[in-house]
Structure formats: C-alpha cells, structure tokens
C-alpha cells in the first residue's frame, strides 16, 4: 500500500513546475526544481513524453483537424485529376485541355472550339461516366467502412444487408417479367427491390431482438432469399439474350451513366457522408462493442438505425444506376485503415476518396483493355484490386508497430 501511494504521489504536478514550460527554458532550473520536489521520476516521465510528442509531430499534425483537411484536399485534387485524365483515355484523341475547355464552355464560358461529336464524347459520355464511377467508388467505400465498424465485422460490405440482391430481383422483375408494364425503368425496379429487401431485413432484425448479430443474420437471410428469387425468375422465363443483359448489369456497368444518375448519386453520397461524419466519434466508440459505446454516451439503437438507413439508401441508389459492383466496399476500407489508422474522422473521407479514385481508373481499364468490348466493372475491380490489396496487407504487416503508423490513430 505504501509503495502504491509513494509511486503515485510524485506524478501529480509539482508546485515548483517540472512541467513542459520549465523544461523548455533550459539551464539548471528544471533539474534543481526536480530535486527539490523529489520529482525526478516525474521529470523523466515528462521529458520522455515531450520527446515522444516531438518525434510524432507529423503524426499529430495529421491527426488534428487541419491534417485531415490537408489529406482530404489532396484526395479531392487527385480525384479531379483522375477524372480529367481518364476522359482523355480512349480513341477520340482528346487532351486534358480539351476536357477543360468543354467543361468551361458548358458552364457558361467561351465556345469550346471542338467538333460537336468530340464535345459530345466528353460531355455526354465520358464525363458523366467518370463522375458516376467516382460517386460509386466513394459511396461503396464509405458504406463498407461504416457497416464494418457498426456491425463489428470485417467481412461486412454494402451488400451485406441484402440491398444488392433485392435490387437484382427488382431489376429482373422489370426486365424479364415486365412488372410495371414498361412504365418502370430498370433503375426504378432495382431501387424498389433494394428498398423492399432492406425493409425486410430491418423488420426481421427488429423482431428477432435487434442485436448486431441479428442484423447480420437477417441480411444474410434476405440476400439468400432474393438471390434465389432472381435465379428463379431468370430460370423460368428469360431467354439467353435477356439473361446475358441481366448478368452484365449484375456484375456492374457504368456504360449507361447519365447526368441525372450522377446528380442523384452525388446527392445521396453527400447526405450519407455528412450523416456518417457527424457520427465519426460514435463509430470509434463501437470498437469495444455496443455496450461500451453506450457507456461512452452513444445512443446505440438510434445511431444504428440511422446509419443502416442512410447506407442502405445510398447503396440502393448506386446499385440501381450501376449494378452491384463488388470488392470496393469490402476491401477498400481495409486498405484505408492500413493507410490512415482506425479513427473514423479520417477513415471515412479517406475511404471515400480512395474508392473514387480507384473506381475511376478501374472503370477506364474496364472500357479500354479489351476494346471494343467492355469488361464488366465488377470483374475488373476484383482482378485489378486483389493484387493491390495483397500488396497493402503485406506492407501493413511490416509497418505495424512503427511509431509513425501507430501514432496515426484516434
């Protein structure tokens, strides 16, 4: 007992001031003060603390709000550059300057001075496609990161709550069965299916107790059910051509991107990003489970419902315009965590930006590598993404425990 009290005593700040202020003033002052207060241990502790702080200054700078802002600004620039660059990739021979001129012209500037055909390629085809890729990549990455933390499962992805399977059932109902009598588009059908599936998951999860495990299991049940329904519909009534069309859509395609889809997707993305970022600290609190989060002041049920709703909404919007693009939402959050640590204030924007840049480039590869044929983007994401991810996993493993990496946490 005496050892305990003796040990804890000197650690309280001494009146003579062995704190950072005197330590920094140099000379014999702090040393004598330390002896006078019998606080050598405390002084040593403190100087060790100071050294650590100095050594990790860059990590601290990154952790602060400004650091995150810098990282995000760089990410946005990288994203914009990627979009501008990928538009020039392809057969029309368009340069970055042309892209800039077309955008300026459309936004009310001088005439672009390009042929209508080339201007159309930039404005009607490649720009909305690249932007939709960016929105999808960002949205899927964001949803994946949020769901992995919320459900405490590293295998969670945006489709874990049955949204994509519901969307596919909705899509084949419209395309193959002709539900809606031609008034419904494929996207509308997909969105309706996704919403229905998610509602079913919420209902199931709620009636079975509402815990994290129940939510996951309900999602799996819905996923299986709607996948089976899709297969059943295709099996019973589709011809080969329709089946091919549906399959292609299921694997993801950004080929039909329109400005309307970009606008809706970007709106949903912005909403979800704001809602999730406002709960970034609360997501951090989930590291030790929902009860620990509750003890840290998080209203667990309400937050879980809110986040499930916004991520499901965003996923449904993205899936109905671009199909179920896999890999991005499952793997990119892990890559982002390896790069910037587990704090959600940084993780969420970084994952979104990483996803955006990733999908912009992968979609470009998908449309050009086998030209004139187009690879489904969902196939390309995995083919190109897995090797990159393996590389990151190995890097992360070697780098773990290094002071810089460790300091980039919460």
């Amino acid at each position, binding site marked *: 007992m005496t050892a305990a*009290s003796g040990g804890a005593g000197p650690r309280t700040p001494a009146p003579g001031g062995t704190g950072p202020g005197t330590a920094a003033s140099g000379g014999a002052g702090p040393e004598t003060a330390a002896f006078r207060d019998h606080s050598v241990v405390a002084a040593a502790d403190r100087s060790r603390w100071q050294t650590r702080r100095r050594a990790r200054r860059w990590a601290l700078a990154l952790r602060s709000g400004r650091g995150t802002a810098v990282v995000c600004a760089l990410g946005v620039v990288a994203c914009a550059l990627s979009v501008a660059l990928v538009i020039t990739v392809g057969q029309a021979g368009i340069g970055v300057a042309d892209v800039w001129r077309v955008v300026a012209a459309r936004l009310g500037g001088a005439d672009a001075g390009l042929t209508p055909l080339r201007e159309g390629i930039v404005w009607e085809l490649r720009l909305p496609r690249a932007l939709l890729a960016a929105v999808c990549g960002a949205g899927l990455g964001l949803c994946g990161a949020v769901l992995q933390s919320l459900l405490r499962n590293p295998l969670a992805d945006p489709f874990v709550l049955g949204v994509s399977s519901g969307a596919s059932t909705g899509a084949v109902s419209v395309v193959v069965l002709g539900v809606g009598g031609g008034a419904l588009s494929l996207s509308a059908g997909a969105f309706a299916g996704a919403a229905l599936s998610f509602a079913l998951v919420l209902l199931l999860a709620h009636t079975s107790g509402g815990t994290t495990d129940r939510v996951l299991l309900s999602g799996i049940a819905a996923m299986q059910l709607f996948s089976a329904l899709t297969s059943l519909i295709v099996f019973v009534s589709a011809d080969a051509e329709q089946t091919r069309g549906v399959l292609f859509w299921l694997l993801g395609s950004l080929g039909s991107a329109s400005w309307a889809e970009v606008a809706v997707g970007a709106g949903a993305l912005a909403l979800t990003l704001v809602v999730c970022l406002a709960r970034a600290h609360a997501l951090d609190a989930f590291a030790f489970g929902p009860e620990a989060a509750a003890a840290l*002041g998080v209203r667990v049920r309400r937050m879980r419902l809110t986040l499930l709703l916004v991520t499901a909404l965003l996923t449904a919007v993205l899936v109905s315009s671009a199909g179920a693009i896999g890999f991005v939402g499952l793997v990119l959050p892990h890559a982002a965590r390896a790069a910037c640590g*587990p704090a959600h204030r940084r993780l969420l924007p970084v994952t979104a930006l990483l996803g955006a840049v990733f999908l912009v480039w992968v979609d470009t590869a998908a449309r050009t590598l086998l030209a004139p044929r187009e690879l489904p983007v969902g196939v390309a994401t995995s083919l190109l993404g897995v090797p990159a991810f393996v590389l990151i996993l190995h890097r992360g493993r070697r780098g773990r425990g290094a002071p810089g990496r460790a300091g980039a946490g919460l």
Partner: protein
Amino acid sequence: MSLSARNVAWRAGGRLVVDGVSLDPRPGQTVGLLGPNGSGKSTLLRLLAGIRATSSGVVTLDGRPLREVGRKAVARRVAVVEQHAETGVELTVEDVVRLGRIPHRGAWAGPGAEDEAAVREAVERTRLADRLDQPWHSLSGGERQRVQIARALAQRPSELLLDEPTNHLDVRHQLELLALVARGPVTAVVALHDLNLAAMFCDHLVVLCQGRAVAAGPPGEVLTEELVAQVYGVRSVVTAEGPGGRPSVRFLPEEETEPRQTAEETS
C-alpha cells in the same frame, strides 16, 4: 446524492436478475459490491451506468433520472470499466485511452487542450505513459485492464463503476489500482470477489445474493463469519487484523475434509 439507485430491478427471461436493490453512495465514497457468481453485480453496475434500462425502480444522477439526464451527459459523469473488453480493430494504447474523451467532444470537433490534458493525466496515473504506441492486441489481460481504467479516468468522471477490476492483475497492481480508486475524489462502485481487498479499500459494502441486497454497511459490520457462510456457503474466520482494524477474512476448508490427512496423502 450524486449517483443513486432506488429499488431497481431488472428482469431477463422471466427471472429477476436484480431484485429491488437500493444504493446511495456519498460523494467520494468507495462502495464495494460483493456476492457470488450470478448474484447480479454486473447487471446492477449496468443499470447504474444507464446502459440497461431498469424494469422497475429508478437510477438518478444528482436527483434526476438517468433517462432525463441523457446518454451523453451521463457518460461525461459516469465511467464504466467492464469485465471483458474485446475488439477486432487495430488500436494502440493511446487510441483506447482517447476513446474516453468521446462524450466530451462535439460531433465535428477535434481533440482540444483539455482532451490532451485528460488523456495525459490518465496514462500517468495508470503508469502507461511509456506504452502509448503499443498495439492493444499485444497486451496481456492485466495490461488491457489498466488501459481500460486509463480510458475511464480520461473521461474525468465523478462516478466510476468497475466490474471486477482486479481480475487478471498481479498483487501489486491490484493494490495500486484500488488505492487509486479509493483515494481519488471520484465516487466509485466496485464489484469485487476478493473480500479482503473489499474490506481494505471500501468505505461501504453491499452484499448481493440472488439479485437481492442481503447486507449493507461499513466493512466492519458487514463482513462476518455468519454472512460469509450464508452468502457463499463457506466457513471462515473473520478477525479485525486488517489495516486500520478493518476485518480480515481467512477461509477454512469444508468441515468433512481433514487437511492434515489429505496433505499426507498427496505427499
């Protein structure tokens, strides 16, 4: 005043896990919760923290029911250290301690000077200052316990709820931790298994048995041979030989066995 429970009960699957317990620690007091496994200690702590809603009865903070105070405001006052803490996230010691500042931070705010000071003070008091970079997953059970306690201290609570905090700790750290809790200005409610540690550090003891409070009061009054026999079903000798004349409990083997004989047989 401060945190107080009036006649609280919690029901699960038709069984009353906590059955009408009242608790009213004075500010700064250290209250020990004793009782055998499954007597409702952990559940009572969760009710006190507001993590679980009471089936009946009410928990109040400064006279206001927890529900009215609000989750976040409660978490700024009441810190909890659970018995088990597990995570799949790759966190460092510092990351975990920083979690304690969540209730104090706005949704969009970065860590401020007060957050830094609270984290620093917490790690110094728990002697973790030189281990901040260590990954959580590389820590032993006792070290994890200390990190969780540092996290709770970083919350700068006025009430601290600890569920068997001395589990996994070696003797020195057990004494150090309980001294930290008992000497500090916080009001602490601590579930404990070790009767002697409870007698040594607690100002007030509440003994639970099958969800009911069967005894409450200062250690000298509560810890008797009769109570130990009644609650734990174990024979013991209680003397006033603990520090400051507090009770000291020595357990005896069951009546039927004869220790000398068994010792000879085994050797």
